[in-house]
């Protein structure tokens, strides 16, 4: 089994996690408040995504017309409504629109609970962000390593391909691919719900003040399949460029020449020397890419190209229809995106400062 085999990547990564690296990560984490904030934000997003059916106060898809467009806690307001009077004329009536503890982030136009939708939206964002990045890495890193190691014609051909790929803005390319290939959304059973774990935990919780904690949560979760593929395809170039740059540098090192002189095959040299010495910048790039892909996914959902209906971007698009009456419908999911992406970016900064690879902050955003 070759070390280029993706199944061996974790061990290749572990090789790089020398005691010194771990020490650097730890001391940088201790001294940097921003690193702590980043880890806290990312942890919060991951917890929301994994335990959504337990954390969400309501079923995110349950509609309740009676409590539509309820404002978030602390944003209750009074408005003047024109109503028909008894003598056939009109009267102005002052109405108090109250916020309720039951819907801390308010409700949307169909009376669905915004807090629950924000919690569930974390799933779509993180699943697409992480699996899209892994896919981009799986395609980009081997191409980059081979390109940088062999140089010459092959390198030229691969890098010109990368140039062509870069000439299409990632959002435009992603819209075109998803729009043309269709939105293959896969319904996946939610393990916490189908095993009854979520219902058991929710049933055991008793809330004060007559608040309910409903147990019927969605049994399946929709994975935007095409979107994951497309964001992976669209972003491979960045990994190829960074891996190539590293490979170009490493392949000039004396130890590579030595390894080759001792009869090491190209595969051996790439796997044993070039890849392990490139992991740090690739890791840092991967963090930046998770942030970029979360932004890309939200843009696709906003434009209704992703097929996901429980997604932060999708909810912002919904909120636009209520922009004159209920600002929170667009505001809440957007804040969730901003906080998550800030978290991922801060973790990226932490890794970069602790591991100190020579890498530019590239990778794009939306």
């Amino acid at each position, binding site marked *: 089994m070759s070390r280029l085999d993706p199944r061996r990547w974790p061990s290749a990564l572990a090789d790089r996690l020398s005691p010194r690296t771990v020490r650097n990560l730890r001391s940088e984490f201790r001294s940097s408040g921003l690193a702590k904030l980043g880890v806290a934000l990312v942890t919060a997003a991951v917890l929301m995504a994994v335990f959504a059916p337990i954390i969400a106060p309501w079923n995110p898809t349950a509609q309740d017309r009676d409590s539509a467009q309820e404002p978030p806690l602390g944003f209750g307001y009074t408005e003047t409504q024109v109503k028909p009077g008894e003598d056939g004329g009109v009267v102005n009536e002052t109405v108090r629109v109250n916020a309720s503890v039951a819907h801390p982030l308010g409700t949307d136009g169909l009376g669905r609970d915004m807090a629950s939708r924000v919690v569930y939206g974390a799933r779509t964002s993180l699943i697409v962000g992480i699996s899209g990045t892994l896919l981009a890495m799986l395609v980009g890193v081997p191409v980059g390593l081979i390109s940088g190691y062999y140089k010459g014609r092959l390198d030229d051909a691969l890098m*010109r*391909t990368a*140039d*062509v790929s*870069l*000439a*299409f*803005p*990632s*959002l*435009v390319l992603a*819209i*075109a691919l998803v*729009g*043309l*290939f*269709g939105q293959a959304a896969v319904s996946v059973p939610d393990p916490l719900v189908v095993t009854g774990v979520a219902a058991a935990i929710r049933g055991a919780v008793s809330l004060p003040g007559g608040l309910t904690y409903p147990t019927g949560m969605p049994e399946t979760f929709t994975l935007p399949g095409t979107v994951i593929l497309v964001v992976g395809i669209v972003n491979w170039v960045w990994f190829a460029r960074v891996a190539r740059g590293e490979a170009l540098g490493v392949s000039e090192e004396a130890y590579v020449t030595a390894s080759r002189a001792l009869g090491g095959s190209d595969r051996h040299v790439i796997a044993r020397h070039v890849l392990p010495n490139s992991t740090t910048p690739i890791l840092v790039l991967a963090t930046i890419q998770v*942030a970029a892909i979360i*932004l890309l996914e*939200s*843009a696709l959902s*906003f*434009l209704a190209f992703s097929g996901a209906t429980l997604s932060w*971007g999708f909810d*912002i698009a919904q*909120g*636009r229809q209520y*922009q*004159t009456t209920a*600002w929170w419908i*667009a*505001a809440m999911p*957007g804040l969730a*995106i*901003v906080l998550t*992406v*800030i978290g991922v*970016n*801060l973790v990226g900064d932490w890794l970069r400062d602790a591991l100190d690879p020579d890498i*530019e*902050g*590239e990778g*794009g*955003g*939306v």
Partner: protein
Amino acid sequence: MASFGRFLARRTAQGLFVIFGVVTVVFALRYVTPGSPVDFIAPLDASQATRRRIADARGLDDPLWLQYVTYIGDLLQGEMGYSYRSRTAVAPRVFAKLPATLELAVAATVVAVALSIPLGVVSATRRHALPDKAATLFSLLGISTPNFWLGVMLVIIFAVQFDVFPTSARPVGFLETLGNLLVVAADGPMISTSWPLVHLDRLVLAAPLDAAGFLADGRTWVAHLFLPAVTLGTYFTALITRLTRSGMLEQLGSGYIRAARAKGLPEALVRYRHALRNTLIPVITVVGLQLGTLIGGAVITEAVFSWPGLGTLVIDAINNREWPLIQGCLVVIGTGFVVVNIAVDALYARLNPQVME
């Protein structure tokens, strides 16, 4: 200087190759996606014979290589085919949308450069002071905020709540605004297909000059452009602020700056003449690399503000599967990206001749 010419020639050759690749990908895209164009042209109840006639007339049954050669031949003559639905030529429709998108992109770039470089410099020269902290926080927020959400929130705050700016649309463009003062003379169009391509001499002052109309249109134009430009420009302001700050810090800590200070040069000269200049060189490369993000950002900004540019056109075209229109938009976007990138590289080479080797 000869080497600069050679550099430019090499970059142009590479650029042509990339454009060729773009065209090939765009052509291939139609054949790898499901569905035949005939399905979109023919009426639902069309007979086999009608479908065959449609396919024949458009060469859809020709061998792939012949269709490819024909496509490239047409493109070289500025011909992008006809829309399936409206039966109108694609090329004029695509080019008619260019000014709106360019206005947005240029305005956003102006906003970004005008704000970010001073911010980055202040941030670096007064490190850890309040302005630095504010600028760092702003740039972190800026690179983490999805621009379409920023656009929606700006509309809610400044158009809906406070009614300072209009919510969307572009009732008047820059060229129409300018049209109050300058008009094209009657003896021919300003842009022609034969040499010289642009006839600046055909541009004459309007008689009578409509100064009031110019001011009114100008105000409308700026009012509608403001929120979209801020929406699109924020990410770049944040990005360039970050780059300028870290670049300045690196330069200010280097040997030649210490030497310049030691020989008693005024601090302003050291900072702006020496450090800032060397900082901006790498900033230009990254900005060039991010042009794709700018164009992609323009697409979604246009969607938020119903801005009638290339972005709105390409989204409509994809939703309607209007292949000639999709291909036209993608070719123009890809070519535009390559051309601007060559310009950025040329600028970079003038500033830092080392890259030409």
